[in-house]
């Protein structure tokens, strides 16, 4: 479901997220996205319960969210900055680069990650931008992304 929150942008629940991007269980790492301004910004929310598959093995005595999953949550929120544009909704997207990835704190069961994604440019199927994230107001991980929509990019390939 997609709700228009007027001046606060669009809000997407899990069904709305699945309408926009192809990621699915067990690799969909955002629960809700709000304050979306298509073509500019998205705020993602991911709450981590101990029932997540990765907590028992990572680590048995001290469970925490693996780094690659944190970055996946960041990039999935970033996707919502441009896959919410009606003409690109539901398109497959692929990562081209993940740069400047930084982890500022450990995330443990029971914590919620708030992710803010900014789209800096989106031209001919290539999106560039970054995500920053917070837990209880404290900076968590951040990264810069370049993502492509192959179906759009292929229209510009020399023959």
């Amino acid at each position, binding site marked *: 479901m997609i709700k228009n929150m007027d001046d606060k942008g669009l809000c997407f629940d899990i069904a709305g997220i699945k309408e926009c991007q192809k990621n699915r269980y067990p690799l969909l790492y955002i629960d809700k996205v709000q304050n979306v301004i298509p073509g500019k910004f998205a705020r993602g929310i991911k709450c981590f319960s101990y029932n997540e598959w990765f907590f028992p093995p990572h680590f048995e005595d001290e469970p925490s969210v693996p780094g690659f999953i944190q970055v996946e949550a960041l990039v999935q929120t970033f996707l919502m900055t441009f896959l919410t544009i009606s003409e690109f909704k539901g398109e497959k997207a692929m990562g*081209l680069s993940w740069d400047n990835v930084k982890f500022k704190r450990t995330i443990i069961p029971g914590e919620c990650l708030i992710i803010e994604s900014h789209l800096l440019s989106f*031209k*001919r*199927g*290539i999106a560039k931008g970054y995500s920053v994230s917070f837990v209880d107001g404290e900076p968590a991980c951040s990264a810069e992304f370049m993502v*492509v929509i192959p179906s759009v*990019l*292929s*229209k*510009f*390939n*020399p*023959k």
Partner: protein
Amino acid sequence: MENLKKYKSVFIESFGINESQITSLKYQDIPEWDSVGHMGLISSLEEAFNIEMEIDDIIDFSSFEKGIEIITKYKITFND
């Protein structure tokens, strides 16, 4: 000649190649000039020459030589 120098330098910077390699270069001759590299090249050329290329021209831009012909359409001269 200034524009030719600028044109060559965009290729050199985009693909990390030597000047001796570029004059006969065609799309997909080197791994760096793939579909993504092509978009990077086009963006850099648009920025360097302050132009916005048409879709048909981006598709036709299949070699270093062909690119000169295409960019000339945007009132950029290469023989000044």
